[in-house]
């Protein structure tokens, strides 16, 4: 049973560019959450997708957007990248409701 997978593993972008990160949830899970983890910090909730819709959003600007596909996989898009967007981006999947979340290995984004 494959766990949560994310791609790519590492990414280097320039300020002002746009980036797309991808996540495949654990088999049987229908909810995907995205977190940003800056260096030396705990993960911060970005948003959550369920049934292809954004169900909840944390305190992140509109430059951060996402999508969920019918197979429950998800993308995180960040436009107009800033140096401060450099972080580890974690995807977590769960069943609908309040079930525990399983995390992927993350995508390390570096903005130069």
């Amino acid at each position, binding site marked *: 049973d494959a766990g*949560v997978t994310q791609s790519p593993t590492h990414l280097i972008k320039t300020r002002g560019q746009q980036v797309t990160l991808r996540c495949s949830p654990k088999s049987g899970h229908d*909810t995907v*959450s995205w*977190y940003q983890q800056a260096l*030396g*910090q*705990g*993960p*911060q*909730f970005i948003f*959550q997708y369920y049934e292809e819709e954004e*169900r*909840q959003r*944390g305190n992140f600007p509109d430059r951060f957007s996402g999508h969920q596909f019918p197979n429950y996989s998800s993308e995180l898009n960040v436009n107009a990248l800033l140096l401060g967007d450099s972080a580890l981006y*974690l995807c*977590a999947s*769960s069943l609908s*409701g*309040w*079930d*525990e*979340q*399983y*995390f*992927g*290995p*993350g995508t*390390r984004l570096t903005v130069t």
Partner: protein
Amino acid sequence: AQSVTQPDIHITVSEGASLELRCNYSYGATPYLFWYVQSPGQGLQLLLKYFSGDTLVQGIKGFEAEFKRSQSSFNLRKPSVHWSDAAEYFCAVLLYGGATNKLIFGTGTLLAVQP
């Protein structure tokens, strides 16, 4: 506001010694609490969770945690630390209800293990 506090940013213990990592939470409803471990450059692995019932919960890798409602705490313990336990540990509370299902994390405790 809901929050999680991990008072110790960095802890160093000797291999074989006991360990306790502190976690305090602020949450109005019945908390669902978690401890995750993160090795360098890796994602988060769930160590244990508390939803209800017995306040002493057992997890993987020999870890346990005790929920104390009166102290709003959920401290993580291990009787004998191994060198492979060196990692960063995060406590989290699950906010839930209606369409809400998100984790609030503490800032983490970095554990170093001396030989």
